[in-house]
């Protein structure tokens, strides 16, 4: 069972690698940031799998932090973009 879980985590790692193509290609800023978010969700899943496979409960805490911080980064990104637009419109 644990081998299966580790292999699953490896596949998820591979999808992160593939997603990098979209980050570098863009073309929109949303694409890039969203991929960072995607890595968050995928990372959460991989961590949960590893926590079970290696029997390391603290990794579930790491996964929870990933999920919370992904929300923060994305929010700051959107704010950054929104303010940028405001300053352009206001000027």
């Amino acid at each position, binding site marked *: 069972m644990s081998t299966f879980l580790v292999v699953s985590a490896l596949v998820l790692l591979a999808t992160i690698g593939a997603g990098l193509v979209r980050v570098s290609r863009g073309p929109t800023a949303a*694409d890039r940031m*969203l991929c960072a978010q995607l890595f968050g969700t995928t990372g959460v899943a991989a961590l*949960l*799998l590893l926590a079970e496979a290696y029997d390391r409960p603290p990794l*579930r805490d790491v996964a929870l932090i990933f999920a919370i911080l992904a929300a923060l980064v*994305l929010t700051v990104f959107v704010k950054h973009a929104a303010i940028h*637009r405001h300053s352009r419109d206001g000027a």
Partner: protein
Amino acid sequence: MVLDGLSLLAVTAGVLFFVSGTLGILRFPDVFSRLHALTKADGLGLGLIVLGLALQATSLAVIGKLALVWIVAALSGSTACYLMAHFELERAQEPHDRA
């Protein structure tokens, strides 16, 4: 044994959803469909993996934490999707003179 099989099935399905989500962001033509592919497929994928792992869990506390992780990830994922789509939509409606 049945539980093991179910859990195997759920985790496999979850991983497949992640793979299809990544295929979506690589292949889909515009940012909205990519957003859609990414957040929906990954949300479901994570849900299935959490389900599969919960079937393996030995204590209620572990199940609780798995559920919490899933709820937080689903909340932040869907909010992120909404904010991004909103942001892109507004941008698309702007006059294009500066582009």
